[in-house]
């Protein structure tokens, strides 16, 4: 059997993090989830970090999604990153500057996100 794709998902909104984690786990992805930027950063810095794709919320306490994107892209330039933003928050342009592969605005449909993930993983 083919090894499942490994995703890192970071969001501080519990219900969103749970929804995303459950959705992608059901779709047979290997999901690592983090509820804040520091936790997410620790996963990225871990020695065995080998994520195929990262999904991060942009507005997070302490270490923002923009920071996550910058740090991840520096360490793993080829790993695609999808940024998701909340309502009335405007750091999209910063996410682009940090080389996020895609910025998705909430609300979005889960299948829409999945299509994006499939596309980015295929491009890789």
């Amino acid at each position, binding site marked *: 059997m083919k090894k499942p794709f490994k995703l890192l998902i970071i969001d501080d909104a519990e219900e969103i993090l749970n929804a995303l984690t459950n959705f992608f786990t059901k779709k047979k992805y290997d999901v690592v989830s983090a509820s804040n930027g*520091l936790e997410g*950063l*620790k996963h990225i*810095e871990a020695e065995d970090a080998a994520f195929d794709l990262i999904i991060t919320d942009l507005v997070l*306490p*302490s*270490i*923002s999604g*923009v*920071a996550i994107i*910058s*740090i991840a892209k520096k360490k793993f330039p080829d790993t695609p990153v999808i940024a998701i933003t909340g309502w009335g928050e*405007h*750091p999209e342009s*910063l996410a682009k500057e940090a080389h996020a592969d895609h910025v998705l605005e909430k609300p979005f449909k889960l299948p829409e996100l999945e299509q994006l993930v499939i596309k980015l993983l295929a491009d890789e």
Partner: protein
Amino acid sequence: MSNHSKSKTGPPIVGVSKNMERVRELIEHVAHTGLNTVVFGESGVGKEVVAQNLYQKSPRFGKPFIKINCAALPEGLLESELFGYERGAFTGAEQKKKGKFQLAHSGVLLLDEIGDMSLPLQAKLLHVLQSGGGFSPLGSEKEVQTDTWVIAATNHDLKKAIDEGKFREDLYYRLNIIKIHVSPLRERPEDIPLLIDFYTKEYAAMLNDRHIEKPSAQVIDRLCVYSWPGNVRELQNVLKRMLVLGDSNQIVDELLNGERTSSPTSEATNGPNQQVSLTQIIDLDGKNSPDNQSFSLKSAKKEAVEMVEREIISHVLAKTDWNRSKAAKILKISYKTLLYKISDLNIIPPEK
């Protein structure tokens, strides 16, 4: 003390509270990134210590660490201090001057009290950050390119300032790539005994380990229930007073009584400007002790003059409600000299 210095090493971050541990952990993880950072917290909580620790743990350590207080200068002067100017750029610009942004090149620029920066300057700062550190000094055609790690500090709620139209939202997001919150000391009393211990040792070392009496366990307990409106800076002042005057119990009595009878905006908040003895002002027993290698009449005198100036200017500014032209008249110095002194001596306006 001048408001900037090269590769200055600050104290470690002392404390065992959740907040201090979190702050230390964040520093470990982000110091190498050079990403724009904002340190939030009340006056005297240790925002500058956090900035210094970020710098010390970063690859930029050893390069310049430049600090500027955005609340102390009016817009025009702050702009010229930040970005510099060419000779003749405006009346009084007799020679070319490098801005702090350029002086901090390859190192760190600490923008203290960023919440007090005027909207037009916020726009200019945003532009500089967007362009990756490029700008033209006033009166200059040539663009200078800088690689400066911008760390900002504030005691304002910037979100609220955005709602009130006083702070640009786009600048807020650009600066807040990393956010570090430092809690007020009253919310982490468990740090107080450690801070007392650390600073008692530090002051003792300054006094060449002459026997000094550490506050008793009972005094420390009482200090832990005080609300510390001036945070760690106030604790340092109280500790110094105790070590110099020796009458710890009386000093705690005064603190706790004062708290009961006065509003929280009174004296204690002005921690840095409290009355102290002359020996203490000059720190003759401490940093400027003739027993120290670095002692010289010249340096001790310079420091003493700065401290006396700071004290007097703060006093007159407080009396005039920070009406700077009135204060300048009373002090019999020019308005411009006063503004430079406010900046150089790092005199901070009261919170509005």
